[in-house]
């Protein structure tokens, strides 16, 4: 028996699978934010019929690392840098985050300045020693670090990605002197991110040192709670899972654990049904995550969390502050704005009846009759429509519109924000959204998917059978992923590429060993070798799979991405990578026979747009069923809105496919 467990801020979602063509079961319960391991256990007991002792594997998506960073509740840590560079984290890239701000602020660094220390040593860019490590001075620094009583120590020296000796000497000294008691508490930049750009590397190593003790403790609690025979895996931001023990080495790789699980779940379900080029729309109460997968997930290494650069490979997920709880207001210039301020869960949207008075996106949907007043969240919550109407009437008064038109306007403004996020992950990366299917999930995704698709001419929308538990599904389906990279920085030539091909054997051996440790058999292993390449003089690399003519492949990719190639220019290779995948056995998904037929609505109601809206129950819809908009499809954890001019049909995998007529 295997289970996927996604613990979010409000709900804990579980999906289980008993192997060999068995059944999938789904369960949802409220999270216990103080003791997440309790939510996991309670959920597992509910979903595993014979008791949790029969569990073989649990895959988990966690927000623990993310929350520790956002709330600045991570470990007490110190930073050691090369002499002359103790303020790396404070100067950053020297810019301010906002251009027109009379009193600009920067995100609070994770390590205070008084715990940042300089170590006398210096390498040059080739890794040659300009100044040897001064051990006596190091000892004096370590005296002071000892007095700081830290949980972990981050070390980031210049050029450690070429020559790691000094960092390793420092680590050895720290352990010899017992400044910290376990070796994983010393976090070296040459181990976490052996790549150039000192601030981004220092920021990444500080993030790792900040969350590693927290994640380590959390994983320890989970492992104690779970039966000894079951193995725990954690979702990483790149969409793969790793065994829980690895978290003590790669804690920061879980920063986007939950959202990545959603993307992987969406991709798996969509590709089984024949849609392997997708854009995901995961819309919740406070925010929306948008990501693009073109044939296979392609993680990128340029992102940030709470304004702090994080350079580990993560799925390219764009998050914006637009969700059901986003507040709508009229600004000083008379324009209607939606978000990023959110009513949160408490008081929440006005229709929750918990005292919220400001109009939100959920209120707008409620006014337009798109939320099921009787069965909202499976009947667990009654909607207070009159409170929603009061909130929108006030907004309508300010802009001089009817309440219904105002509600539509609120949705339209939220959609344009989503539109911009989708452009960011598609057009700005050289992908045409018209070649993709939009996969909508999260509580509010299926309500807004068609409108989002219309703005970008996306031809079709797919709503999976259980859009509210897609992250848990993604956990159950995710493969084990390992990655090894090495900064190489050299000019691309036939000779250098041949030499790199040889040195990749070492990365490959390490990846193979790691997968074996994860219990993956040789037949289930897949490896992809690639190079990060750029024209000499550029700062951004393109990741090119290692094939017959990688240099030509790079020119072609540059042309596709930027519209021009410069075949006369020298090409540089920056990083060499090997990605290993351990294929996990997936639930067999066979298509049911789909007999085309017109679906029967269980009712209808007057649409505020004029005409009637047909009402459908998702669980009544059989494969092959189809119907035209305007329609609403109700199910326990989500509502799908099918606008006029759209048609819905159910495929053999029970997905709801929406297409423009």
């Amino acid at each position, binding site marked *: 028996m295997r289970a996927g467990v996604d613990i979010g801020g409000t709900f804990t979602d579980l999906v289980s699978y008993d192997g060999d063509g068995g059944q999938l079961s789904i369960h949802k319960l409220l999270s216990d934010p103080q003791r997440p391991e309790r939510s996991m256990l309670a959920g597992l007991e509910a979903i595993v019929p014979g008791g949790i002792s029969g569990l073989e594997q649990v895959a988990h998506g966690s927000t623990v690392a993310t929350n520790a960073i956002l709330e600045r509740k991570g470990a007490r840590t110190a930073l050691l840098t090369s*002499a*002359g*560079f*103790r*303020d790396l984290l*404070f*100067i*950053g*890239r*020297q*810019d*301010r985050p906002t*251009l*027109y*701000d*009379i*009193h*600009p*602020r*920067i995100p609070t660094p994770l390590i205070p300045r008084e715990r940042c220390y300089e170590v006398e040593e210096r390498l*040059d*860019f080739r890794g040659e020693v300009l100044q040897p490590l001064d051990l006596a001075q190091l000892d004096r620094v370590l005296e002071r670090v000892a007095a700081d009583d830290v949980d972990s120590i981050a070390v980031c020296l*210049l*050029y450690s990605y070429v020559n790691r000796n000094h960092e390793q000497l420092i680590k050895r000294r720290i352990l010899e002197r017992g400044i910290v008691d376990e070796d994983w508490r010393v976090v070296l930049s040459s181990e976490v991110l052996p790549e*150039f*750009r*000192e*601030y*981004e590397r220092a920021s990444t190593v500080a993030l790792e040192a900040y969350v590693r003790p927290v994640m380590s403790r959390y994983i320890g609690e989970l492992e104690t709670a779970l039966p000894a025979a079951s193995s725990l895996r954690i979702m990483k931001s790149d969409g793969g899972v790793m065994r829980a023990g690895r978290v003590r080495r790669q804690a920061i790789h879980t920063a986007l654990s939950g959202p990545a699980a959603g993307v992987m779940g969406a991709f798996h379900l969509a590709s089984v049904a024949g849609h392997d080029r997708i854009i995901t729309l995961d819309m919740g109460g406070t925010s929306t995550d948008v990501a693009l997968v073109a044939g296979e997930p392609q993680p990128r290494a340029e992102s940030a969390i709470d304004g702090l650069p994080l350079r580990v490979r993560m799925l390219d997920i764009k998050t914006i502050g637009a969700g059901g709880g986003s507040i709508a207001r009229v*600004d*000083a*210039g*008379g*324009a*209607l*704005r939606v978000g990023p301020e959110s009513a949160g869960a408490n008081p929440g949207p006005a229709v929750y009846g918990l005292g919220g008075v400001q109009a939100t996106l959920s209120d707008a949907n409620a006014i337009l009759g798109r939320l099921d007043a009787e069965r909202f969240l499976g009947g667990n919550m009654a909607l207070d429509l009159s409170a929603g109407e009061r909130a929108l009437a006030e907004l309508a008064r300010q*802009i*001089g*519109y009817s309440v219904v038109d105002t509600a539509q*306007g609120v949705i*339209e*403004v939220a959609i*344009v*924000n989503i*539109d*911009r996020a989708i*452009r960011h992950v598609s*057009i*700005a990366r050289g992908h045409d959204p018209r070649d993709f299917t939009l996969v909508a999930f999260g509580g509010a995704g299926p309500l807004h998917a068609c409108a989002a698709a219309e703005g970008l001419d996306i031809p079709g929308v797919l709503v999976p059978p259980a859009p509210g538990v897609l992250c848990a599904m993604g956990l159950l389906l995710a493969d084990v992923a390992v990655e090894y990279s090495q900064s190489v920085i050299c000019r691309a030539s036939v000779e250098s590429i041949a030499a790199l091909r040889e040195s990749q054997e070492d990365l490959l051996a390490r990846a193979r060993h790691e997968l074996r440790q994860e219990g993956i058999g040789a037949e289930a292993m897949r490896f992809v070798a690639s190079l990060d390449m750029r*024209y000499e*003089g*550029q*700062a*951004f690399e393109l990741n090119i799979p290692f094939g017959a003519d990688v240099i030509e492949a790079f020119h072609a990719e540059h042309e596709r*991405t*930027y*519209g*021009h190639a*410069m075949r006369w*220019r020298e090409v540089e290779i920056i990083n060499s990578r090997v990605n290993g995948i351990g294929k996990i056995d997936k639930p067999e998904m066979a298509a049911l026979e789909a007999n085309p037929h017109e679906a029967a609505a269980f009712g209808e109601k007057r649409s505020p747009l004029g005409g009637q809206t047909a009402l459908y129950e998702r669980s009544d819809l059989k494969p092959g069923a189809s119907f035209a908009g305007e329609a609403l499809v109700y199910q326990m954890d989500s509502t799908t809105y099918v606008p006029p001019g759209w048609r819905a049909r159910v495929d053999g995998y029970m997905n709801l496919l929406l297409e423009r007529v």
Partner: protein
Amino acid sequence: MKGAPVSVDAISIEVFKNLFAAVAEEMGLTLQRASFSPNIRERLDFSCAVFDAEARMIAQAAHIPVHLGSMPASVAAAVEACDEFHPGDVVVLNDPYHGGTHLPDITMISPVFAGGDLSYFVASRAHHADVGGMTPGSAPLSTELYQEGIIIPPLKLRLSGWMNEGAMALIVANSRNPAERIGDLEAQLAAHRIGESRLADMMIEHGVESTAEHANALLEYSRYMTEAVIARIPDGVYRFRDAMEGDGQREYELPIQAQIEVSGEAMRVDFSGSAPQALGNVNAVPAIVRSATWYCARLLSEEDIPVNHGCFQPVAVTTPAGSFLNPRFPAAVVVGNTETSQRIVDTVLGALAQALPQDIPAASLGTMNNFTVGGFDGDDQFVYYETLGGGHGASNRGDGLSGRHCHMTNTLNTPVEALEYSLPLRVRRYHLRDDSGGAGFHRGGDGIVREYELLVPATVTINSERRLRPPYGLSGGAPGQCGLNIIRRDGEDTVVSGKHSAYLGAGDRVIIETPGGGGWGVNQSDAEVIPG
């Protein structure tokens, strides 16, 4: 509050604001990623914007404030210089007296058509690390424009889609690093292709007339919001005087005098009384003065006003002809864009502080600390340009930021690991300058110390300010510390002037200590020990 001031509805104004901004943003992303010089790809010293057919700015991708208020002049100059436009044209220019600001900033402008009608322009401006001139990096201690590099009047670099290879070759041949120039100019052209096609798509999707109507509405919207900000400033006349410290030829005070007249929803800023045109490189063309003044007005808004032509309308700027804020051709101007622009901001904010003492921060570092270096690394010629941040002024709301760029610039630093890999330089120290911020109830932010070691002989040019006159404090706060430029030869330190150029040897070092920000308010503990 007045009702919605705009002629279109509250909903679609927000929709089109995002659509236009997305065009400029995508141009910027393309330019950054395809570019070659550290100055563009690492430091993001560029801007992109969308204009209407009347050369009014509709939307911008926010990068560098000094670019944005001065780009309208570029589009106007392109329109004036060209009899007609065709699809696929790209105009290039850098002449400060015809739409430019200083020669390293090369601006491109291309028309976007709807059917047969010219409807919009997209524009990009990027700071190119070398465009020729007296010293590597094209920021020399010059006395006339001709010494600052190649002058490009508005001309078509692309005609109906065909490259003007001759013009390209001429521009590139005048740079000390031609291969990098080609790459960066190509990246700008790539950004234009993206911008042109996105705008065309937008007109197809939303209709030509509706798009135009909403562009107009966006201008009205920003104008209305800017007027609301000005209306909150008490009516009156406010004066302030600050000064530059020298023109690169000699050290002397060049006063900047601002008189601000606020009346209802309009603001007039008159710079009469400022110093006459200088012999050296600190002259600033009027586009820069307007840009810096508009920036100050935009700063006063709490609401996120989209920066476009509408923000500029309520703020009138007067610069007396023949002053160093409105120089006559061919006066040297290269530092007007970076240094004089910062002092204009200090002067305008200083005047506004009298009207809004609780809102305006003390002076920030007030200089970009421009560092240019160039020479030969073996047979290869190299050129490099960068700027340094420092301490921000404190305000009623808290301490000033340390080690960051302020006001008219927001370029990033070049990572030391990227810089040393591509140039024969070594950065020995890069840290905050402790206790350089001005004391006060809230402290000014600290400056930066950056120490460079040359690995080969090279020409170094520094253009900096606030080496003699410190950034002012406000409401009783102390001024920040002045910056300091030091050259270390054979172990011996020499303090050099704020603007300095020298040919140095291998092993020599340049140490730049940047100014701290001014403090705000009286520190209670300090006040207690002062008798009386």
